């Protein structure tokens, strides 16, 4: 199929479907995207790892980045807008409905009980991917120092995570740049 002829509404519809069935974040989206897009001949099997790698390294929501990139491949900037709006529309509608209803449900005794049980559980669900990531990427003493330092600054000194990322970016950029220049 000629990529230039893919209608924008179809890009929107396919990404809306991908968005509606992805529970659990960007990585859960990858097999669904692969299935939907290679079936239509929109991307080749070899292209997908590239798209994923790029989407991971760009800032922001990974699933949205995948949509922007894949949409761009199909129909340029227009395609990327259609894909992005498509992938965020289902969750936007669902969350908006929940947000509007939750205020009236919040004081229901059953809801209070259920959320009393849910809250501690959620904290574990944040901690588990952290431990997994730490095992993968903290392999030297300075990586541990960086991780623990960031944790202490944000958790106990109320430093904004944005400053941490900004500082690490500047220092890492400078260090890598000069190291490269030196060894060359």
């Amino acid at each position, binding site marked *: 199929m000629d990529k230039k002829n893919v209608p924008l509404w179809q890009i929107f519809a396919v990404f809306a479907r991908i*968005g509606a069935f992805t*529970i659990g974040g*960007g990585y859960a989206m990858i097999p669904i995207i692969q299935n939907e897009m290679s079936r239509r001949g929109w991307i080749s099997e070899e292209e997908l790892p590239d798209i994923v790698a*790029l989407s991971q*390294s*760009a*800032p922001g*929501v*990974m*699933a*949205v*980045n995948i949509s922007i*990139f894949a949409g761009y491949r199909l129909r340029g900037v227009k395609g*990327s807008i259609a894909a992005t709006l498509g992938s*965020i529309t*289902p*969750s936007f509608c*669902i*969350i*908006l409905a929940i*947000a*509007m209803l*939750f*205020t009236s449900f919040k004081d229901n005794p059953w809801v*209070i*009980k*259920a*959320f009393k*049980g*849910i*809250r*501690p*559980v*959620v*904290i*574990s*669900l*944040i*901690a588990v*991917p*952290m431990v997994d*990531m*730490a095992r993968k*990427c903290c392999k030297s003493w300075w990586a541990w120092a*960086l*991780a623990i330092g*960031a944790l202490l600054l*944000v*958790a106990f*000194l*109320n430093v904004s*995570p*944005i400053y941490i*990322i900004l500082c*690490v*970016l500047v220092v*890492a950029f400078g*260090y*890598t*740049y000069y190291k490269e220049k030196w060894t060359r």
Partner: protein
Amino acid sequence: MDTVTLFLQLFGTFFLIGAFTIGGGYAMLSLIQGEVVTAHHWITESTFTDIVAISQMTPGPIGINTATYVGYDVVAQATGSHFLGVCGSLTATLALVIPSFILVLLIVRFYTKFRSSVLFEGVMGWLRPAVVGLIGAAAVILIVRTTWCQGVPTFTVVEENFPDWKSWVLLAAAFAASYWGKVNPILVIVAGAVLGLLIY
């Protein structure tokens, strides 16, 4: 506060979060918490925990879900209008997406050069451990509240999330189930809700 200022703040805050989140959805949670809970006090720790739970159970990226929820909640609380709440929701969600949009389209142009560069790999090698720390902090903040008074910190448990010993047992059980048992997160949350109904 006047409504226009609130909308501008909402846009600016989520734009920054979108621009500076590198390292996936959980890293974004840390930034959202830092801005929305710690800096602006738009929502409390326990509401933030509830939103994370809801986001995990509904489709779509956790960052988008949180932006949508917070955008509605903050504006609807401040103005009492559902319509303005919906506008707030749209503002926060689009603000979160716009930086990615600009940056991904820029990166696409320099794609091959960008990916293979030593510089990029070097920077990511620093950034990943920092992101681990940020995610850890997000979890810690939901457990312990730190207040500073004349240079002396006081630590208190976040009562809304941990009212009694049963919640610590739930925390440990959920960690074990998720980490060693590899149980699906949605199932863990549903189990938490059922246990909450039974024991409270």
